[in-house]
């Protein structure tokens, strides 16, 4: 069974970002029956994220969130667009992940904004971020402006389904992810450290 993590950086409740995240998760579930979905809302982790930046270690709830994302077979990442890019809260979460944590993971990127004019933030901000982390970013990225939840909802739904289909194909094609190596269970033997 596939495990999908959803990271949502919306701030209000209910937030458009969470609504979009849920729609993407639902479309993925339909495309991949039996998928297990865990949603991580970043707002309750906001203080913990800043603390982590300062202390270098996560609080228990944040550690759980990091582990859920790291152990997933695919990730749906959704942020509101703030000042022409992802929000600071969204970025803070990916800043505290190990830089290998998402390597090889299928990632579906999505964003919300007040107007359609910010849609390319997905291409110039989110896609390079996940490219740097060596994730497989789904070709179709989903942007939803306020109007997309009303009169243009049909077009949005179509885009969600296309993105979810591509995401599902990647998750299926790549199969379950191998967990990252655990340095504590399997330390590098010292003679190798000496000879390196």
């Amino acid at each position, binding site marked *: 069974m596939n495990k999908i993590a959803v990271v949502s950086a919306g701030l209000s409740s209910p937030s458009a970002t969470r609504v979009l995240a849920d729609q993407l998760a639902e479309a993925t579930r339909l495309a991949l029956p039996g998928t297990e979905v865990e949603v991580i809302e970043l707002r309750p982790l906001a203080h913990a994220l800043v603390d982590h930046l300062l202390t270098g270690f996560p609080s228990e709830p944040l550690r759980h969130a990091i582990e859920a994302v790291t152990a997933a077979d695919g990730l749906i990442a959704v942020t509101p667009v703030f000042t022409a890019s992802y929000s600071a809260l969204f970025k803070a979460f990916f800043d505290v992940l190990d830089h290998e944590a998402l390597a090889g993971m299928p990632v579906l990127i999505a964003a919300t904004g007040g107007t359609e004019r910010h849609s390319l933030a997905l291409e110039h901000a989110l896609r390079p971020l996940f490219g740097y982390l060596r994730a497989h970013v789904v070709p179709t990225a989903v942007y939803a402006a306020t109007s997309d939840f009303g009169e243009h909802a049909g077009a949005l739904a179509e885009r969600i389904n296309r993105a979810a289909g591509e995401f599902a194909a990647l998750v299926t094609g790549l199969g379950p992810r191998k967990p990252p190596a655990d*340095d*504590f269970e399997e*330390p*590098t*033997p*010292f003679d190798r*450290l000496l000879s*390196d």
Partner: protein
Amino acid sequence: MQFGIFTVGDLTEDPTTGTTVSEFERIKSMVAIARKAEEVGLDVFATGEHHNPPFVPSSPTTLLGYIAAQTSTLQLSTSTTLITTNDPVKIAEDFAMLQHLADGRVDVMLGRGNTGPVYPWFGKDIREGIPLAVENYALLRKLWDEDVVNWAGKFRTPLEGFTSTPRPLDGVAPFVWHGSIRSPEIAEQAAYYGDGFFANHIFWPASHTKRMVALYRRRYENYGHGTAEQAIVGLGGQVFMRKNSQDAVREFRPYFDNAPVYGHGPSLEDFTEQTPLTVGSPQQVIDRTLSFREYVGDYQRQLFLVDHAGLPLKTVLEQLDLLGEEVVPVLRKEFASLRAPGVPDAPTHASLVTAKEMVAS
């Protein structure tokens, strides 16, 4: 079991008065703190090494040599000596010299140092931190254990027929602890050599320290130095005490909130829950410290951080009085009664000399 204190030697503004002591005052206060540690019955004083403001201890063996002359039983150590950016030849010489002056009351804790800019000041690269720690220590070991050294490596000029002087006191090198906050490679290094492993402990959650120490113990046994339970473990701790725990919290909070490293981050309450920091009564410190044993096993050395974040000298000396009078005597008794048979003490110069003589005879 050994109890002591370790200092980072920071020059931090006292947030309650807005004043910062001079370097002169801070350095002299470190000496006063060390003398007080011996006076109240503690076993160990360890100093950090830093090469950038706001820290003063750039020259640990100078400080420890001066303290050695003013004390008679205190074990002198470091927290940590930078194995990455110091020349291993100079470490070998400085600490052997200190050993002679201090009649053997010397050990050393090696660490990598996590201040990025320091590396290039000494011609090194922080990205090579682990390889530097590995190669430099291999050379340091040779310089202490072999009278004539031929050596070539990646990071230093080769040595041909080199003898570091003075030779270690009684032909026995200072005991080495390897200190780390987070690197499993350092636990592996300590295990490989059968040296001590010191978990910083104070900046990260107990769950992390538990994994680090478990790795070290398992690998120590694996490398044939003894059983996992016999491995030599030290832990950091951080305390602030008053008779009444509410007074301790009220007095320490401004120092916590503005402290280097974690200041302006988590609340005092969150950090107390997440790390070994204990702010409260002496009894609370006793209870918390005894609980460390539950996740690292029987261990040999407990060092407390008590003198940072701008705390005035008078307050620090009061903390040492509380440690010496109320906390450590109880901890000694309790830890001794809980300790499993066959668990060794931390090596000292005397015990290492005895061990060497037994091998020779």
